[in-house]
């Protein structure tokens, strides 16, 4: 009798999980289906979800007709470097904010929090002028360069915040033990805290990569030649003056989403290490 109620419970769970899956997945099924339709089929009435024929040419076209391969590469470079910088520098800072005591610590942390509240859109103009006038960098400064694309949003307050929350939940006894054993601060950071933080690092990696991958406004402002375009700008090129080539844009969007899905698939188990998690006690000093 126990087995039967277990089975029913499992079936119910699967049903529930699938319903939720449909809610999340539904629009993307439409996106993919649109990318294999012809333009006429997109607006047919009654609306057709599945096209009569799978028109894969759109995927070929985006690779041939536009700058997409290069844009793809650019987005990859920018996202990877920026994420690496973010994980490394933010974890250093978060460690100090969570563990070390120094004058002005809490005020500096509020400053970090403050930087999270500024919407990207408003910073575009001042950052543009700053990048143009970087000394020693030629007449156009860092415009239209990888450095210009990466640096302004390389470190985010969000990463520092998240990692600090995580560090707070690791018991201090580990630190104290290590100090007594003669570890320097950096050794504590590198050998103890960081390894216990794989879940937070995984989260920051995913979210950093995601935000750089999907960023449109800043690359649009700073990139001036087609070779420097990132993927979201290249996708926008399918928007014409009067029409939008829907199947083409959706094919581009599908292609743009693939690396993220792969990255998330790889990192997902790391969230479940459970140890040194983000939850329970986080004591501040």
């Amino acid at each position, binding site marked *: 009798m126990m087995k039967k109620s277990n089975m029913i419970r*499992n079936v119910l*769970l699967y049903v529930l999980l699938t319903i*939720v*899956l449909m*809610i*999340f*997945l539904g*629009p993307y099924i*439409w996106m993919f289906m649109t990318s294999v339709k012809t333009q006429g089929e997109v*607006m047919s009435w*009654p609306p057709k979800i599945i096209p009569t024929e799978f028109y894969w040419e759109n995927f070929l076209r985006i690779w041939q007709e536009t700058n997409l391969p290069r844009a793809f590469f650019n987005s990859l470079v920018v996202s990877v470097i920026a994420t690496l910088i973010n994980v490394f520098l*933010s974890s*250093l*800072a978060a460690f*100090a904010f969570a563990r*070390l005591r*120094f004058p002005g610590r809490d005020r*500096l942390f*509020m400053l*970090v929090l403050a*930087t999270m*509240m*500024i*919407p*990207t*859109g*408003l*910073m575009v*103009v*001042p950052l543009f*002028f*700053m990048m143009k006038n970087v000394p020693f960098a030629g007449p156009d400064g860092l415009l239209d360069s990888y450095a210009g694309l990466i640096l302004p949003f390389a*470190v985010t307050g969000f990463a520092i*915040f*998240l990692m600090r*929350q995580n560090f707070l939940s690791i*018991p201090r006894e*580990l630190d*104290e*033990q290590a100090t007594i*054993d003669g570890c320097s601060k950096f050794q504590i*950071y590198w050998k103890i805290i960081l390894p216990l933080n794989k879940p937070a690092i995984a*989260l920051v990696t995913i979210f950093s990569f*995601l935000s750089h991958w999907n960023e449109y406004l800043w690359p649009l402002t700073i990139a001036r030649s087609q070779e420097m375009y990132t993927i979201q700008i290249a996708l926008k090129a399918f928007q014409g003056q009067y029409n939008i080539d829907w199947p083409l*844009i*959706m094919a581009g*969007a599908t292609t*743009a*989403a693939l690396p993220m899905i792969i990255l998330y698939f790889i990192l*997902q*188990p790391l969230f*479940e290490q*459970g*140890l040194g*998690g*983000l*939850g*329970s006690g986080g*004591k*501040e000093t």
Partner: protein
Amino acid sequence: MYWNIPFPYKGVKRMKTETVHEYKSVMKPKRDMHKLKDHIGSYLFVLPALTFLTLFSIVPIIYLIWLSFHEYRLPNPAIFNGVENYIRMFNDALFIKSIGNTMIYTAGSMAIGLSGAIAVAVLLNRKLKGIRFFKVFYFLPTITSEVITAMIFLWVFDNNLGILNYILKVSGVESPPAWLLQPTTAMIILILIGAWRGTAYNIPIFLAALQAVPQSLYEAARIDGANSWKQFVHITLPSIMHILVYCMVMSVIGSFQVVAVVDILTNGGPMDSTMVVIKHIWQQSFEFNYVGYGAALSFVLFPFLLGVTWLQLRLSSGKDKK
């Protein structure tokens, strides 16, 4: 707290906590001398990150503050005009309205988004065959950019061409509402889309938090006869409170920045009911070319957000009575 991990140091015995405290008090004088050295070392940890943040976030803010006292119409140079921009702001009814709209949007999408995320995380937090498949695909809504997501939903909710109304018509609804053409429904649609994305974004965070709650607590509660709901309210929720606060803060900050979805779906209409703050600032700064005025508007928005965040953090540390 008992941590069942192998102690990171091989061959070193763990000292008892009392011994550690004794040891520390003996070593205090030596420590004072090294305090300065300590502090410099600590600053070195935060220096790189802070340099980036100062250069690329604080400096632009200062520039924006400076701009807010000028009239700046590209490509002409900026002309000082005192507090004129701020006076203009008081008469800008649309600005006030946009803040109100954004707050409604924020409250709605945060409430639905966070409760949805916790619920789904609880659902996912179990050993079930194939659960990893679900976990990966539940993240999908965050993977595409705002613009693409908005375009997809356009085809769902459009009055005459969208799937939703077609399904409704076929199911017998005579005249399904024009979702995006009426103020109330337009805002509801925006909130739902915001919650859709927000839920997907927060599920991994809550999942990680849930994993850290020790099973022993649940077992003890079960022995005491508590049902699932009681377990959830008295064990799960308090355990993830820290993360919940973090997610709420991030949710407010993120919701205030929404603009692409509004641009594509409703363009601020109908009758400015979905005009959100950033869209208004963007329109004033760049479309209408009042960059100085836009800077003033941003400068007012910014402490508002800071205040909300500070409030949330205060409330959370108040709850931290462990």
